[in-house]
């Protein structure tokens, strides 16, 4: 039976934590654990989800869970998986939940190593587009133009000058068995991908966009809406990589307004029409690439 909101488990495995209201990351973790079930063994690096979930004696995971070093999500997952298998235990899912900084910056080497070894792990990157736990600093997944506390928007520099690192395709370039992008705005799609990854042997990677109202400057009840809008306006896309091929899961007939998406977030408030033109052009180039190379 296909997994969806109706068939999803009622069992809560991540609750009682102190994440901010409207936290997209905690939604991704909660939903993924519902799909994976109570035999999920979760590894989370130092970051938002470990900071909000592991404060002794208030420990918030109903399944096995452990904090890794910031750089060590993938390497600890490798050890967890190998250690259980070495003891003849096979009915578990080793899953990592790391943010964008923990994945695309400090944890990239260990992630690449794990994919290279094809370790039987699922790595989920909840991407909120900056180092949110330390107070909104730029990561390599912060999009062009975004204001963070280390890319202030002033007279001379208008926020982040670099585009978002293309981590999905970097991961795919390893020849990984399964990689996907997702958004907490399209939860059925995300759940389906977690379910699919659950049944694939080898390394799996899911990159789920997970808005942070605190860092993005939107209302706490707008998380899901803005996570939909980023897909609808074409600045994010829902895709999979499998058997050496890219597949696009959702092809918007017509993009919604990029400017509207940007302007509703305080991190982009300072952008000029010229800046928005750069962002729109870069989106169109990306979609040209997707049309050529994705099924």
């Amino acid at each position: 039976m296909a997994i969806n909101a109706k068939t999803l488990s009622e069992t809560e495995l991540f609750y009682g934590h102190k994440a901010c209201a409207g936290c997209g990351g905690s939604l991704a973790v909660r939903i993924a654990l519902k799909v994976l079930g109570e035999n999920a063994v979760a590894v989370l690096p130092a970051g938002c989800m470990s900071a909000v979930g592991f404060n002794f004696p208030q420990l918030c995971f109903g399944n096995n869970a452990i904090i890794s070093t910031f750089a060590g999500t993938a390497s600890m997952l490798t050890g967890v998986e190998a250690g259980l298998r070495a003891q003849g235990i096979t009915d578990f899912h080793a899953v990592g939940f790391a943010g964008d900084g923990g994945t695309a910056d400090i944890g990239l080497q260990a992630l690449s190593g794990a994919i290279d070894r094809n370790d039987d792990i699922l790595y989920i990157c909840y991407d909120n587009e900056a180092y949110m736990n330390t107070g909104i600093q730029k990561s390599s997944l912060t999009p062009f133009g975004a204001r963070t506390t280390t890319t202030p928007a002033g007279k001379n520099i208008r926020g982040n000058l670099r585009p978002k690192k293309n981590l999905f395709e970097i991961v795919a370039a390893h020849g990984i068995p399964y990689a996907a992008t997702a958004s907490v705005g399209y939860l059925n799609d995300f759940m389906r991908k977690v379910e699919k990854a659950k049944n694939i042997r080898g390394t799996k990677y899911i990159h789920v966009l997970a808005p942070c109202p605190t860092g993005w400057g939107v209302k706490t009840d707008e998380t899901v809406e803005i996570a939909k809008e980023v897909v609808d306006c074409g600045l994010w896309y829902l895709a999979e990589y499998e058997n050496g091929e890219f597949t696009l899961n959702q092809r918007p007939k017509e993009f919604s307004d990029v400017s509207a998406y940007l302007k509703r977030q305080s991190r982009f408030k300072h952008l000029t029409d010229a800046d928005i033109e750069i962002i729109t052009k870069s989106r169109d180039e990306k979609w040209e690439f997707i049309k050529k190379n994705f099924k």
Partner: protein
Amino acid sequence: MSKKFLSGNEAFAYGVRLARPQVISAYPITPQTIVVEKLSEFVEDGSLNAEFIHVESEHSALSCAIGASSVGARAFTATSSQGLLYMAECLPYAAGGRFPIVMMNANRSTALPWNIYGDQRDSLSQLDSGWIQAYAGNAQEALDLALMSFYIAEHSEVSTPFMANLDGFVLTHTYEVVDVPTQEQANAFLPKYETENKLDLQNPRNLAFSAGPDTNTFFKYREHLGILNASKIIEKAEERFAEIFGRRYSGLTESYQTDDAEFILITLGSISGLVREAVDKLRAEGKRAGLLRLRYLRPFPNEEIANAVKDAKALAVLEKDVSFGNEGTVYTNVNSALQKAGITLPTSNYIGGLGGKNISFEEIINIFDELEKQQSKVKFLGIGGEANGD
């Protein structure tokens, strides 16, 4: 038991095989590499049934071992020098999580300047990381230590990771005839690793959590007690080892001619072989010289040192490291042991062997000669007297 002609690295690898680790994370670095090469051969030929993981860095090597240990598997890794420093974040992590990983460290100089040869600045820089630290004197001891380290680290009263140090090249690459015990003997010595401190599908846990100011001291104190407990568990392990293998070790320290010694040299690692010869020569000349070899630096042998030197006239500490801006780290620790025991005698510190520089027999004899002057000083071997303020 069979006799084999093995280097220190190979002897240690044989010891690890006898301990039957379930997960080995491996990354090469000179002069440790032979250990992981040898273990990969054991896995290939089927004589060792372990998950052998080719990690992409030392940070991942220890992080992976922590992951394996966190689910109750017996885990091993090995490193040296820059590698130890690169994984340094994971050292207190493993200790604080009470994960009894065993790691061999081939003692090597740390950059800059680059140097691949042996000194002890790498491991001594990590003395406060919460790991048990042992220093082997020869290849046989390296093998035996490999086997005993798992027993000690995994003991429920200890639950502390174990760093077994071998002097780079001098010990790691020097061949000796080594007794290799049988697997049956090893199995009789080393029980299966059992722990409740693990992620468990039947009894889910949250591990490696945060503990704020209210609870942090509690966990850190428990960690301290665990490594202190290692003293008596080391004794117990060696007793058990002697019963099964017939070789007896002497705990945290090894004394040689210290009972009536007036002048005692305290050192660690493989240089102690040469110091022993120097003591023999001086004894033959009627001089009352003695050697105290520190086999463990954590837990630190405070009482053993005090007992060994209490009737001496002066002592020197010879070590292959320096804590820049102060003195040798071992010297600092030894002086603290004396102070706590109310022993006042002149102590000197000889810093030698940095970057693999040879320490000669004559230099050791000279240390004993200088001890008779009963001065307290810190002196570097192998540089001119002027630099030492002489």
